[in-house]
């Protein structure tokens, strides 16, 4: 079960593309993600108007997409295209900060618990399990509601708060894996050579945890996007911060979903969904690279290969088969 990271340098590997790009899932996921990251960085600059800009203060009918407003306008005549371009930055930043902080926390707690064992492990494990059992989003709702409005507009603070409710899952997985790795002979061998504890954790154990770390990071980012969008949609985030979530919140307030103004709620929802899917694809691909047996079979109806069935080894004789 222990996924072992295979060395990056491969002798005689076929093709010049790095191995991870050869997985279609990873490639698709990375491309979509790259698009949204670029959007988050350059989107606000490229937007034709500022998110607060109103085309008119008299009109209160949302207008469908036109050549002037590519994604139409909302009730208050905000340019929705501009809001969409500007709204990615906070969402991604918060999710990314949340993912980083949560992963760092989970490494500290999980790896320490697994490596130290004994009483330290027991205390850290209980802590982890408690945080796992707590309904994170609900606590976030209560905390956000209690926070002064100014603070809910601070992406770094929100990211950190989200991280507090998200680190436990990773810590638990990392602890289990560290526990398995700690008993590997190479850890003992390193100790016999005279390596110190910190060095062993950083150079012997941590590199072997990288796939899990990556997957736990991505998982947390997905969670962070969902959590932030949900909070914003619930109106718990300072609405002056333009984000996809707050756009959906205003749409919700004006019953956009039931009044047929699809251009209002559709695009931000799609953006959130696409980022989530991109990350999920990445996670999926990493899983398959780390554990090739989990790779989905691509044999469809057109495949000529033998059908494998447990306890019935296929017989394909050379004259019928396609052996070279």
């Amino acid at each position, binding site marked *: 079960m222990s996924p072992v990271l295979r060395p990056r340098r491969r002798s005689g590997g076929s093709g010049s593309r790095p191995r991870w790009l050869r997985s279609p899932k990873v490639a698709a996921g990375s491309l979509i993600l790259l698009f949204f990251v670029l959007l988050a960085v350059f989107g606000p600059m490229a937007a034709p108007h500022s998110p607060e800009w109103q085309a008119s203060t008299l009109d209160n009918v949302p207008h469908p997409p036109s050549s002037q407003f590519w994604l139409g306008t909302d009730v208050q005549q905000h340019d929705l295209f501009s809001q969409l371009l500007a709204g990615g930055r906070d969402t991604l930043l918060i999710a990314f900060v949340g993912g980083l902080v949560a992963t760092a926390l989970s490494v500290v707690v999980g790896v320490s618990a697994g490596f130290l064992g004994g009483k330290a492990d027991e205390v850290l494990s209980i802590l982890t399990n408690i945080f796992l059992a707590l309904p994170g989003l609900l606590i976030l709702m209560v905390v956000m509601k209690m926070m002064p409005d100014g603070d809910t507009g601070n992406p770094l603070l929100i990211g950190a708060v989200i991280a507090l409710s998200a680190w436990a899952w990773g810590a638990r997985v990392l602890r289990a894996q560290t526990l398995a790795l700690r008993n590997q002979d190479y850890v003992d061998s390193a100790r016999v050579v005279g390596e110190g504890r910190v060095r062993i954790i950083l150079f012997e154990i941590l590199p072997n945890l990288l796939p899990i770390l990556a997957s736990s990071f991505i998982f947390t980012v997905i969670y962070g996007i969902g959590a932030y969008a949900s909070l914003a949609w619930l109106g718990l985030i300072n609405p002056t911060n333009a984000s996809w979530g707050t756009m959906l919140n205003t749409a919700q307030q004006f019953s956009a979903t039931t009044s047929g103004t699809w251009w209002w709620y559709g695009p931000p929802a799609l953006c959130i969904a696409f980022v989530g899917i991109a990350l999920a694809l990445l996670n999926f691909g990493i899983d398959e690279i780390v554990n090739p047996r989990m790779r989905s079979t691509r044999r469809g109806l057109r495949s000529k290969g033998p059908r*494998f*069935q447990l*306890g*019935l*080894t*296929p*017989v*394909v004789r050379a004259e019928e*088969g*396609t052996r070279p």
Partner: protein
Amino acid sequence: MTQTQTLNPSKATTGREVVLEIRGLDVDYGFGPDAVRAVSGADLTLHRGEVLGLAGESGSGKSTLAYALTRLLRAPGVITGGEVLFHSRPQGADAGPVETVDILAADAKELGRMRWSELAVVFQSAMHALNPVARIDAQLTDVLKAHRRHMSPAERRERAVELLRMVGISADRLRSYPHELSGGMRQRVMIAMSLALEPQVVIMDEPTTALDVVTQREILEELMLLRERLGFAVVFITHDLSLLLELADSIAVMYAGRIVERASAAELFRAPRHPYSLGLKGSFPSLHGERVRMEGIPGAPPSLKSMPSGCAFHPRCKFAVDRCKVDLPPLATPAMDRIDGLPDVSAPTPTQRVSSCWLHDGQQAAPDALALPFPTPVHLPDQVATAPNGDTASGADRVPSSTTVTHPTLGSTS
């Protein structure tokens, strides 16, 4: 203590009737351009009641061969050629008609019916071969439930008790889970399970490798005793040639997916014909006599992906000649073992010893170490090791290129 005698089976009781025939079996891993050949053209014949040893190192294809012939080989294993014929004789009747099953042509239903009832398997690690969440009795009776529909639950239970007792486990262990048993006991349960339907052939894949020597010996003794009583034949797979030499009637030595030598245990022990068999035999230090430096075999076994040309053993063979690098030697009776009037180089009878080595093609004299006479000139049935002529044999047995070096530490100790 009479049971101990059975460990070295008396050859006289071995029936000559063939129960399992394997002809030219090819097994690949993978399919299409990425496929690697794991077993090539394996020929084996198992006689009723016989212990056939399959010896070889990891990656030699011995387990692949055994699992392929039962069609239990996992993906991506594919059988790409050959024949496996099982000559089944109905139970209880010695003279009953023999029914032949073509295992490679059988469908799932037929395999499901004949497997275990006629051909059972004991896996290497009983730890992994027993379902961890099911009790022992459930695992013993489910096979009866599947194959012996007429048995009542009480009868099945009774049979399970009987099976456990047969392998020396008391009935109160029936309700145990596998993790509550010791390693030796788990392997005994596996053996009991394999014998539940009184099969004619039992395939054992390193059944005692994970066990301690004393437990290993106890289990093997019991196994041989049961074999004598129930008359099943055994295909015994192991890397421990020294154990096999004690245990088996005949032995097939595998290297890099091919059978390189097939002979009776006595022949192989006293006069190996293939350089690999000789080297393998020379890799087990002795428990007796003066300590001498031994060399083992230089190099390492090849990987299936980069198989050497010609004879796969040639890069490690000290006798290799140019031809070995190019041409694959056939598995044939060594020239010196051929009986006049039987020039069957290409089609040796199943019982004749064969070796796959150019040195025995009769074109040149084989090196002394590979040309020990057998049967030995002086008639001494089973005990050449202690025979007075042992020294004459040993002079020739010495590997020519390695000089005998006295053990360096011996100077100070003796």
